[in-house]
């Protein structure tokens, strides 16, 4: 009896292993015909990775939806160099480990170019693997410095430090303030990165940092202490390198305290006007550096926003804009390099790397973007100010 149990458990374990192998075999078989069809009717295969479930799903969905939209547009217009584009997306649950799994899944599918990952930590983890495969990686919104550490990785958005530097320069150039207070999220990579560079860059500028107060995601409901400190120190501008949800609370609480400095934010503040139950009149006069404003009136933005709304029923944010641009940037680089789908992933990677530093792209997030070999984009930061409940470009 006992003995049989052991035999049974061994058998079950073998069955389990066998079932997993069957699973693997399926996966390889699944990719085989895809490669076969590549010789018949060749297509480019672009994959995207982002958090499609969980707390950060808004970002991942924005990226994956916008990339999908761009791919559809490109296919409708005849594809890239006459080749159609296939698109696939995978979920990473905002987890670096899962992001690598998502990457491997896409690789099995036959991906040739990666748009992703959406978030910084995931992007860094994945870049270790794209480097090994020499796959071309263009992250739309991975803003940490290390995301583009390798030569095969490029990005569309500004890096965190560049946002900090740009903000400090902007405040100094426009003489917006003499005393600056900062409220940042010490538990967040993005916020920390911007904060650090902002402080470094402020040295020797015409303003002085009088308070720098942190909060974390575990105590982000009451900001009265941080605001009081900034107020007591006489800050006439409060820099908020944080996401819009926390910022909406800060604005509300500052209002009840009767404290009204200039609030200055970065691209994380984009979305402030869409917060539920937030009195948008409080956001009047808030300045932010953002690459994309959904209510801009140029043809490209209007076209993108209408199509996106039609298809997905919501107003696209800057993540969506970055991803949309990313697909078009890849198109431009492929056209420049004369890449064809029958090349190997590594060949495509080499050619696109070379082409990236030569192209000059224009898109939603900037009318002129160029790259150098480091993978960082060169583009003008855009500042907007909120006036009558809408973004107006700041003078």
């Amino acid at each position, binding site marked *: *009896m006992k003995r049989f149990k*052991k035999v049974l458990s061994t058998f079950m374990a073998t069955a389990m292993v066998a079932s997993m192998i069957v699973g693997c075999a399926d996966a390889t078989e699944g990719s085989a015909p895809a490669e076969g069809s590549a010789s018949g009717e060749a297509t480019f295969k672009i994959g995207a990775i982002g958090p499609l479930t969980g707390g950060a799903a808004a970002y991942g969905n924005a990226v994956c939806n916008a990339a999908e939209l761009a791919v559809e547009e490109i296919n409708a217009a005849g594809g890239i160099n006459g080749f159609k584009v296939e698109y696939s997306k995978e979920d990473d649950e905002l987890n670096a480990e899962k992001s*690598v799994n998502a990457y491997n899944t896409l690789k*099995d599918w036959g991906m040739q170019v990666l748009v992703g990952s959406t978030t910084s930590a995931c992007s860094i983890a994945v870049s270790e693997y794209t480097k090994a495969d020499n796959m071309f990686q263009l992250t739309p919104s991975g803003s940490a410095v290390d995301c583009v550490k390798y030569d095969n990785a490029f990005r569309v958005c500004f890096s965190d430090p560049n946002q900090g530097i740009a903000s400090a320069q902007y405040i100094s150039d426009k003489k917006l303030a003499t005393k600056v207070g900062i409220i940042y999220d*010490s538990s967040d990579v993005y916020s*920390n990165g911007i904060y650090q560079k902002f402080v470094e860059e402020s040295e020797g500028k015409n303003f002085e940092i009088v308070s720098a107060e942190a909060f974390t995601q575990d105590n982000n409901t009451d900001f009265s202490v941080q605001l009081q400190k900034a107020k007591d120190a006489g800050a006439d501008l409060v820099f908020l390198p944080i996401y819009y949800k926390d910022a909406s609370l800060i604005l509300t609480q500052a209002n009840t305290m009767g404290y009204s400095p200039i609030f200055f934010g970065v691209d994380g503040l984009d979305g402030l006007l869409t917060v539920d139950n937030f009195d948008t009149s409080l956001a009047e006069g808030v300045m932010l550096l953002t690459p994309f404003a959904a209510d801009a009136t140029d043809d490209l933005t209007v076209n993108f926003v209408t199509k996106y709304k039609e298809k997905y029923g919501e107003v696209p944010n800057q993540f969506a804009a970055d991803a949309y641009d990313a697909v078009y940037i890849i198109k431009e680089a492929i056209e420049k390099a004369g890449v064809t789908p029958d090349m190997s992933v590594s060949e495509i990677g080499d050619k696109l790397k070379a082409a990236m530093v030569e192209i000059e792209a224009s898109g939603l997030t900037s009318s002129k973007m160029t790259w150098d070999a480091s993978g960082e984009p060169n583009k003008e930061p855009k500042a907007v100010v909120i006036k009558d409940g809408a973004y107006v470009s700041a003078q």
Partner: protein
Amino acid sequence: MKKKYDNLITYGIVILAFIIFQVLAATGNLSSHMRGLLVPMTYYAVIAVALNLCVGILGELSIGHCGFMCIGAFTSAFFSKVTQNVLPTAPRFILAFVVGIAFAALFGFLIGIPVLRLKGDYLAIVTLAFGEIIKTVINAFYIGIDKHGLHFSLKNAMELGMEPDGEVIVNGAMGITGTPHDANFTISIVVLLLALFVVQNLVNSRDGRAIMAIRDNAIAAEATGINITKYKMLAFVISAAIAGAAGVLYSHNITSLTASSQYFGFNASIMILVYVVLGGIGNIRGSVIAACILYVLPELLRGLNTYRMLIYSIILIVMMIVNWSPKVIDWRKKTFGRFTVRKGAKA
């Protein structure tokens, strides 16, 4: 004798699985998705074994075990980063294991002093709190290195006051990036086998029987002269050390290491607890198998797109019921029981 045979089966399953996967990989039959899953699967099995020692053998519910994994991950990644250009890969990785395991064991000991005075639910809540503390404290650390040595700050990276050539190694919430990618499937399997060896031999030893006696009845155990504190501590520290080893594998497999809740928070700890409960509390082999299945399952469900997390949860519920509901166990005995008896009689 029976126990020994039972243990051998566990090693056999692990080694068999290893050989099968190696053969598949060598013949090119393993998709890169599956290949990428092998190492994570193994280190989750390792930490499931560690937690089973604490929950199943010692009988104390810990829901902060990922905290020890976090310590193992950070200390070893820190060590590997610092010595990256000094030591060759093999000795560096071995030393990284020593460092990670030693620190996890040390913290297991320190945390064990207050925690093990409690029992049951109270203990569970305190371990949860400690897990969160570990995560939060690591998030506040800034450590850099330059030619003058180590710099340390709790405020921000600028406070380190380093020379321009200095390198920030632990950057607060941004954690450690660029840890060398040393872990591979073979090493992970060796670690799993060692963890199994340690735990299974402990269980079958005099110490192990003492530990289980404490679990079954602490007062009776104390009356027979067993030093309760000592044995509780022994099991807890070993459990923390093995969790630390899982952390070392973790940090040397994924190059961006952040102490955020999705990796080391109590949710992650509870996920490990799910592996242990599904595999059977006190059943070491069960934990290994359950950890592998439950880690791979959501990955195999990727084809279902947005529904996959829902389906995963449903499968989890079904698996729990099928495995552990008394009614279902009765039904299984009735349906398959005859078959078992006949086979058993033959054997």
